[in-house]
């Protein structure tokens, strides 16, 4: 009973959540939802009609006698003509229904295809198995490189340019808009238009290899003022450590393996193989939406990422306990 009720509960609660098509957070997905529910109702009616007809046909004139005792049914001509009328009518109704669907779909499609003339541009680059995010600014010195978290303002369409560094990925924020593939050799783009501030979850939607399952991207929709504040904050260089253990940790970061793959803005760490860690401490998750960003998870991830995300490019790191503690202390200062 408990299982059944929890299943019922989750089926009922399935219309909301941070990664849910049916919980729209912006106008485009709202119109897709209208289309979906309209089509669903019509489809449900058609399905029920066909199933009832089939069951009724099978049961109403049902016989239990063997075939060889039953004559072949001879259908009189006028009944045959009536059948032709019925089938023609049903086919006509099908055609009309499909035409209505088609026109409705085209209107929704036109609305979705609108391109605002000016908007904030963000570049999202897919890697196996994490996301690199560039906030483009007309002033190149203000380019902000971030990773594994996407921040956008509410109430305006934001252009997201999509590129891939290796294989095909797909960018999909269910609450806001349908997906778009990131294809090597192509740059595609879509517009994110959200009007409900909140935290949503995007996830890679095109099979991209071993860790396809663990390639998520929290999407944070800020109010317009909050977004400006966040952007200013995010453009600041990596914080300088104050206490001694964090200072030691910084040395570990720079001298050890970390800096060969990870970059810290304003510090001599330029690696571009892994995510930029300038503001790692203020991210909600680590390992591309896989683990909540807690001290314990961070430590576990540094030491043994291969048992959390087998196949990921981050190698295991054998660090002395003291070095590890100092390193985590340092990373926690990178707000």
């Amino acid at each position, binding site marked *: 009973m408990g*299982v059944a009720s929890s*299943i019922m*509960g*989750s089926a009922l609660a*399935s219309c909301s*959540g941070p990664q*849910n*098509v*049916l919980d729209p957070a912006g106008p485009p997905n709202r119109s*897709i939802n209208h*289309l*979906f529910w309209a*089509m669903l109702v019509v*489809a449900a009616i058609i*399905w029920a009609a*066909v*199933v009832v*007809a*089939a*069951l009724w046909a*099978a049961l109403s004139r*049902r*016989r239990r006698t063997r*075939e060889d005792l*039953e004559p*072949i049914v001879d*259908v009189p001509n006028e009944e045959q003509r009536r059948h032709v009328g*019925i*089938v023609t009518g*049903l*086919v006509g109704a*099908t*055609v009309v229904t*499909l035409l209505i669907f*088609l026109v409705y*779909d085209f209107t*929704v*499609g036109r609305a*979705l*295809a609108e391109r605002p003339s000016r908007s904030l541009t963000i570049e999202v680059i897919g890697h*196996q198995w994490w996301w690199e995010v560039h906030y483009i600014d007309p002033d190149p010195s203000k380019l902000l490189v971030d990773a594994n978290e996407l921040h956008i303002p509410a109430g305006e369409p934001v252009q997201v340019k999509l590129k891939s560094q*290796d294989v*095909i990925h797909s960018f999909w924020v*269910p609450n806001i808009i*349908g*997906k*778009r*593939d990131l*294809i090597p050799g192509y740059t*595609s783009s879509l517009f994110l238009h959200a009007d409900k501030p909140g935290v949503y979850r995007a*996830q890679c*939607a*095109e*099979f991209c*290899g071993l860790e*396809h*399952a*663990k390639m998520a991207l929290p999407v944070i929709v800020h109010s317009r003022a909050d977004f400006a504040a966040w952007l200013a904050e995010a453009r600041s260089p990596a914080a300088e450590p104050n206490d001694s253990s964090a200072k030691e940790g910084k040395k570990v970061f720079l001298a050890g393996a970390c800096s060969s793959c990870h970059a810290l803005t304003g510090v001599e760490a330029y690696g571009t193989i892994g995510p930029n860690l300038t503001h790692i401490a203020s991210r909600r998750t680590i390992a591309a939406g896989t683990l909540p960003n807690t001290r314990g998870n961070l430590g576990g991830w540094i030491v043994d990422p291969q048992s959390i995300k*087998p*196949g990921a490019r981050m190698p295991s790191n054998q660090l002395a306990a003291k070095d590890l503690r100092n390193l985590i202390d340092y990373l926690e200062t990178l707000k």
Partner: protein
Amino acid sequence: MTNPARRLPPNESAVTDPGTLPDATPQTLDEDLLIAEARQLEITWRDPAGLWGWLTTVDHKVIARRYIITAFLMFIAGGLEAGMMRLQLARPENTFLGPDRYNQIFTTHGTTMMFLFAVPIMTAMGLYFVPLMVGARSIAFPRLNAFGYYTYLMGVVFMYVSLFINMAPDAGWTSYVPLAGPEYSPGHRIDVWAQLVTFTEIAALAAAVNIIVTTFKMRAPGMSLNRIPLFVWAQLVVAFMIVFAMPAVAIGSTLQLASDRAIATHWFNPAEGGDVLLWQHVFWFFGHPEVYIIFLPALGFITPIIETFCRRRVFGYTAIVLSNITTGFFAFGLWVHHMFATPIPELGQSLFTAASMVIAIPTGVQIFCWLVTMFSGRPRLTTAMIFLLGFFITFVNGGLTGVMLASVGFDKQVHDTFFVVAHFHYVLLGGAVIPLFAAFYFWFPKVTGRLMNETLGKWQAWLFIIGVNITFFPMHILGLNGMPRRIYTYLSETGWGPLNALVSAGAVVIVVSVAIFIVNAAMSWRGGALAGANPWDSYGLEWATLSPAPNYNFLNTPVVLGRHPLWDTGSPLPVVTGLRSDRREVLVTTTFDAQPDHKHKHPHASIWPLVMAFVMVELWIGSIFTPWAVLGGVGLTLLVMLGWGWESSMESDVERVATEGRIVEAA
């Protein structure tokens, strides 16, 4: 295998068999003479004894039966893989399978179900029944047929050996580049996929050519195009689809993908002028028709079953034939709806949206015709009919979500999610596997001579219908809740756990149902009730001969005077005589009106098809390891062709006999 009805002279069955006693022929034939002729035919069409005969047989029924059994084993294998996937996904962050193994399992599941189960079993049903349904002694190219089966079998062995040695493909059954390309899939895993596809292409093309020629040139006299059974029409349309679709994937996988990986061509490398989307176009130009290649034969099963159990000729024969042809044609105009998330111009997308909706119309026409047929008939709820009710419940659901998916806006939301997984399982299980089970129950007596157990059958049918719906319906909701497909695990915070548990529980019901089927089939084959020639009092020519059909199919070629021979003419059917019984001969008729045209010499058992299949192994599997294998393979192929042709030419020393005056047209 051993069946008393199979051996001649079975005096009783010869008497009860309508096909063998042509009372209506002008010259009344002596019964003793008939038995003697049957005995002679049995000897003429017999395979050589022992192991040699087992390996060299070209009897289309023997080959097709092996085909069906192998493909059904593949259904079980693919089902076990699905079971492993469901075990892994039953709860969040499960560790039953790691990503490496899971990716191999889900790729093998998809590849098995599409390439090694669905297409082969559908063409195999055609290879078994098309000659019987058109009243032919055999199939058009029996050696090609045997070669097709052995090639397919080599593919099966190749795939499963790879799975057991950790070499199974792991980039999905679609093998999208660049993930499946040389840089991101090192080793030989994807090469296995690319060449497996080659094996199944060859097998499917061999079957398609056979079905086309058998249907066009070997129909019983009087079976003009407008009298061809709908089963055969569906097979014919599908055969043409195979001929047009398979070359696309041949170019894609055998030429482009394999050579990118093996000899460093740049078809799919954007940095050198290649294009990764090219693969998707080529693949889906084959991949979408593939769905209809699986689905149309199943529609062909449905009509005779409904007609037989409703005791009524189908309403709208012409409409159904035209629907089949239209579906086959439009199926090639839909492929881009698999690519709506790629940068394709919007105008183009709209075109494919419209086409994807249009294809619902011909399928709708068929469903309406069947409903009207059922309404005005007198149905009996046999197991096969219960399965067909399941078809309406399940397939219509899948078809309607298919129409929804034609919408670009909505498709971009649920593309590559569990919604799509639910959709295509509804379509393929509902539209192909459920009718296939119905067909198994319906034609089992023709293949084995015995009826399947109806009680077990009804249990199986209901369990299967319920299991499919419990398993796949919640997947719609999971997809809308954001669950992408092809993930090996998911976090518990996503809230997908309970529904996934339900889905996995549903899979158990399906397993139970299929287990019942296997038990039922095994028990019935050994000890089921004897069926007799026509247990359902059906109408098709296949029911006009013994069950199981003798190796020469028909004692005398029947003559067809309507679409429902046994119902129209009543049995016994009129026959034409004149085919020799001391020599393998088949009657060739004209394409449109099926007028007797000439007699054709029919080949004997031969080892060359099997040898040629081994050459294919050398060629295609060898090509994975060294390109020189292709050269060697071509050389060997030419040599084997020489042997094959030599043997044929030694046989066909007999002139084509003008049939005029020798065939006795019955009244």
